[in-house]
């Protein structure tokens, strides 16, 4: 599933005479099986952008092309349900969308809406629950008696259950403890690596951008300021100060280390483990 964004602008409908674009003239394309991070400060248009990708919002001008689907103003989208089945969005704080009496029903809610048959549904809840790291004892529990982290995982399982080709996640680790956050990020990375899904990650965590993403989109005031690789972004100090982001700590350490060991390959430093590996090579 290639996603093509052409001259996309979006303005929220309002009665105010003075309107400001939430997004203005975004051009980008996301290839199949890519891991893209979207960064930008609060209010920079990240969430608006992802909602334009599955027809929740329709671009004010410009269009989004996804295979045969063209999301454009005044053109009625045929079969919007199928589009949403292919592009799953995990919203910020997804635990607030749980409503069924038990976890199993809630996970199967999406697949049922998308017309999965009995055979496809059998064992599905258990399977996706295992993917997110919860065992089958959770199936019959009420979603409201779970802890915050468990709820979040159940909600993510509810999206994974209908097997979207593109998974868009909006700050999936916000408000979680580091351990759970790590597990959830690993989960998305595995979906990308093993199941070859396209992952679009909206995040404020520059460490995650460095570690997982292949490409990074940087938004500021509704404009796409950069669409590049994390390595290039973190080496462009002018751009970083313009976007008001900080370099991940591990990269800072690696840069300092490079002064002593000039052979160190910074482009391969993604996290602590890869840094240690690189360091072993040069020492």
């Amino acid at each position, binding site marked *: 599933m290639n996603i093509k964004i052409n001259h996309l602008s979006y303005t*929220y409908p309002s009665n105010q005479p003075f309107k400001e674009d939430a997004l203005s003239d975004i051009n980008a394309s996301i290839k199949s099986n890519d891991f893209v991070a979207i960064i930008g400060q609060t209010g920079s248009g990240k969430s608006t952008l992802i909602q334009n990708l599955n027809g*929740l919002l329709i671009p004010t001008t410009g269009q989004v092309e996804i295979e045969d689907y063209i999301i454009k103003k005044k053109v009625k989208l045929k079969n919007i349900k199928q589009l*949403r089945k292919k592009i799953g969005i995990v*919203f910020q704080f997804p635990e607030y*969308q749980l409503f069924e009496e038990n976890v199993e029903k809630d996970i199967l809610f999406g697949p049922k*809406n*998308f017309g999965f048959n009995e055979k496809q549904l059998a064992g599905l809840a258990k399977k996706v629950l295992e993917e997110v790291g919860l065992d089958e004892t959770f199936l019959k529990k009420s979603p409201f008696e779970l802890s915050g982290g468990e709820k979040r995982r159940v909600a993510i399982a509810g999206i994974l259950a209908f097997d979207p080709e593109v998974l868009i996640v909006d700050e999936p680790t916000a408000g979680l403890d580091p351990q759970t956050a790590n597990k959830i990020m690993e989960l998305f990375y595995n979906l990308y690596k093993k199941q070859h899904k396209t992952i679009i990650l909206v995040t404020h965590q520059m460490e995650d951008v460095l570690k997982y993403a292949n490409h990074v989109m940087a938004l500021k005031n509704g404009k796409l300021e950069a669409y590049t690789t994390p390595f290039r972004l973190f080496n462009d100090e002018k751009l970083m100060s313009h976007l008001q982001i900080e370099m991940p700590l591990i990269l800072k350490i690696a840069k300092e280390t490079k002064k002593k060991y000039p052979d160190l390959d910074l482009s391969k430093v993604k996290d602590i483990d890869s840094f240690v590996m690189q360091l072993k090579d040069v020492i």
Partner: protein
Amino acid sequence: MMSNVTLGKYIPNNTFFHRLDPRCKLLLLFIFMITIFINIGMIGYITLGLVMIVCFILSKISLFTVIKSLKPMWFMMVFILVINLIVVKTGTPWHIGKITIYSNAIFNTLKIAYRLVLLISTSTIFTATTKPLDITIAIEDLFAFLKPIVNVHILSMMISIALRFIPTILDETNRIMKAQASRGVDFVHGKLKEKAKSITSLIIPLFVSAFARSDELANAMEARSYNPYAKRSRYRKLKWRIKDSIILILSIILLAGFITLAVTHLANNWNGFIFDWIRGWFK
């Protein structure tokens, strides 16, 4: 779709009406509502309509806002018209094809419609020119005489909190709708059973988060030692000016005039019910 709600929205401005004391405006609202429900005859209604137009001009509310706030009325109007057409069998009969329509059915409906327009217009002027917080203070002040029986402060606090949460809950609704739409819920189309299901998927999370929010708010208030039974001083003080008194006296004179008009127009009995009821009072 949620941002289109205009009924009951405060429109910031600095007009004559905005500067009036909220207590005065609340009293005016009562007076006008009483007047509207008295049968004041054709001349009375036209006068009242003119007064209302003057009020609109003074409060600088755009005609568009008024028309928009009248929108929810249409369904009710059609309903009343249908009932009237079936029930009312007086006046001149008109034959349209095989159906016979009586003139009074139409006139009655028009009369009710006119009253409703007046009613909604008055409340629109009131809410558009008065801050929600001021409304609650006004309520607290005006109902102070009830203090020995009920705790007026608790009531006004509840109202102000409820008003405060309307936009929050609308935002929340929007958010949950989008999340569920991403899971394949269609809020617009579908059979009745599917629709019921889609509404449940919205209502339950909405309630859960509303309860969670109120719990948090209650804790936050208690953490700041809020005690509804304690004697409280007030940060915001209302100031009653001479113009408030003048406007109030003028309105009372208008009301008295209309009541006299109604009583003297006993013979002109063109809407029995409320009128008979009022007449009963004077016997």
